[in-house]
């Protein structure tokens, strides 16, 4: 029997300080996430400088906890993996420099992981990936459709041309006067609503897998203005439901179309917005109808975590990918294949 391979993952790309230990790329041994939501709430969003300051306070504690919970010591590990980008540069640098120091002190290889590759590989912790595979990545910073023909191979077939889906959620939440982070609350209001306002869908060109959400966001703002100018008041539930239906329909229809065109064996959803109940339901129903296996990780693995970084990092480690100690934080890092 082969020896078990334990990988340490570290993630600090935004407002979560996270560390995790994953066994053989598929089994979570420990996953610690220290969220800054409580501290960032008062500022109505993530303040990058504050995110960086809080990461410094948490980073060694979180790594220690990941090791303690796993009942492992550094010499049990085979590699240290860390989010290299994209993300907030000052925040990325804390995880990266901690990873470098840890790797050096314990003489372990260091591997820089793309944050989105991490989100995709969160699924590997739930269900084995089968190729070709289509991944829909939806979060506060991303809305992307990626085709994978094998491990470590990524082909971007569609992306947002303006706002990311999660960004649109947060902006609409602000229009509705919901406190940060508002995305999940829009989802809640939409689920409770029995009626919905009809908002436009941005399909773009006929063959395009790209997305656009800024027009929808403007439509919501205009709708509110119009009603208020007439002295009326908008119904928050109905607006939330209408907005959510528009987003979910476009995401679902384009994902189904791509899955058929690329004849994939598996479809996965990933990223913070993949925690959205409305989207999960819609995608699940659509792919059930098509007879294509669809997977979405549990919510704790959709939002930012380090287990997903370790899972992706494990595949990179197996393929011989290594980083060196001059690794920099890369806020705009493109998703590149390593295989």
């Amino acid at each position, binding site marked *: 029997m082969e020896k078990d391979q334990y990988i340490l993952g570290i993630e600090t790309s935004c407002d979560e300080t996270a560390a995790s230990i994953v066994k053989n790329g598929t089994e979570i041994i420990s996953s610690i996430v220290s969220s800054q939501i409580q501290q960032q709430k008062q500022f109505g969003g993530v303040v990058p400088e504050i995110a960086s300051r809080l990461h410094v306070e948490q980073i*060694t504690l979180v790594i220690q906890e990941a090791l303690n919970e796993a009942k492992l010591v550094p010499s049990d590990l085979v590699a240290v993996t860390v989010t290299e980008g994209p993300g907030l540069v000052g925040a990325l640098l804390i995880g990266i*420099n901690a990873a470098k120091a840890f790797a050096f002190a314990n003489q372990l290889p260091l591997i820089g992981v793309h944050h989105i590759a991490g989100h995709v590989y969160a699924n590997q912790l739930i269900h084995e990936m089968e190729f070709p595979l289509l991944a829909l990545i939806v979060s506060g910073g991303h809305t992307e459709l990626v085709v994978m023909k094998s491990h470590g191979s990524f082909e971007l077939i569609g992306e947002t041309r303006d706002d990311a889906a999660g960004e649109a959620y947060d902006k609409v939440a602000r229009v509705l006067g919901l406190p940060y982070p508002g995305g999940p609350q829009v989802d809640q209001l939409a689920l409770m609503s029995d009626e919905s306002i009809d908002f436009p869908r941005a399909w773009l060109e006929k063959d395009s897998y790209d997305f656009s959400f800024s027009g929808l966001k403007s439509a919501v703002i205009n709708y509110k203005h119009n009603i208020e100018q007439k002295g009326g008041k908008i119904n928050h539930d109905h607006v939330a439901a209408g907005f959510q239906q528009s987003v979910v329909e476009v995401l679902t229809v384009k994902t189904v179309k791509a899955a058929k065109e690329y004849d994939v064996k598996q479809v996965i959803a990933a990223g913070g917005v993949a925690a959205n109940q409305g989207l999960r339901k819609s995608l699940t129903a659509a792919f059930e109808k098509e007879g294509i296996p669809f997977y979405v990780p549990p919510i704790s693995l959709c939002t930012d975590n380090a287990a997903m970084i370790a899972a992706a990092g494990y595949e990179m480690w197996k393929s011989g990918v290594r980083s060196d*100690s001059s690794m920099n934080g890369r806020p705009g890092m493109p998703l590149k294949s390593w295989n």
Partner: protein
Amino acid sequence: MIWLGIDTANSPLSVAIVKDDVVLIEESSMMKINHSLRAMPAVEEACRKADITPSEIDAIAVSEGPGSYTGVRIGVTIAKTLAWTLDKPLYGVSSLKALALNGQLFNGLVCSVIDARRSNVYAGVYRAKGTELVSVLEDQHCPVVQLLEKLKECEEAVLFVGEDVKLYESIIREHLGKQAYIAPFALNVPRASSAISLAQSANQPEIVHTFTPQYKRITEAEANLMKKGSSHE
């Protein structure tokens, strides 16, 4: 006893290894290179050149700020991670005091200066007392003019140390005249061995997990929030 020292609090970088009061190796660079690219490689290089494995390090000293937010965080993150995982004591020292040590032999006050933009500086004022540096004006973030007014009241010779002093040379001379001395360029280089020497005279090591930089300044977002809070009262 083997010490590792790291100073990335401002744009210069310095890494040193001191063994039994001998500076085995010290690399200081005033080149404006991203610390994330250079800091950890410099630590590794210093260890390799000094023929020291990470586990042979007995104690770590780091410049805790004030200075560049990102710079100081990189040094502190590296230092606290090493100290924690190697289970060795960690000492944080003032970046200003470490810099002021370059002017230790000056007969008068030593004022170390790091630019904080928009005519503001981080500054510390010290006096050499025997082999120790005693703080005269606490490390602070303040308008350069305010610092100079305070120094004028001291009516003593002041040596200004630091690469950023030249940004304010004319205003320093204007306010202090003959009271002011500008350090020669060789004394502007922060030295990680100075951080180690200060750490050696410190009483207590830091609590590694909770150790954070000394920013000496709240963030803009916090300042705005406080302003908003007080205007509601």
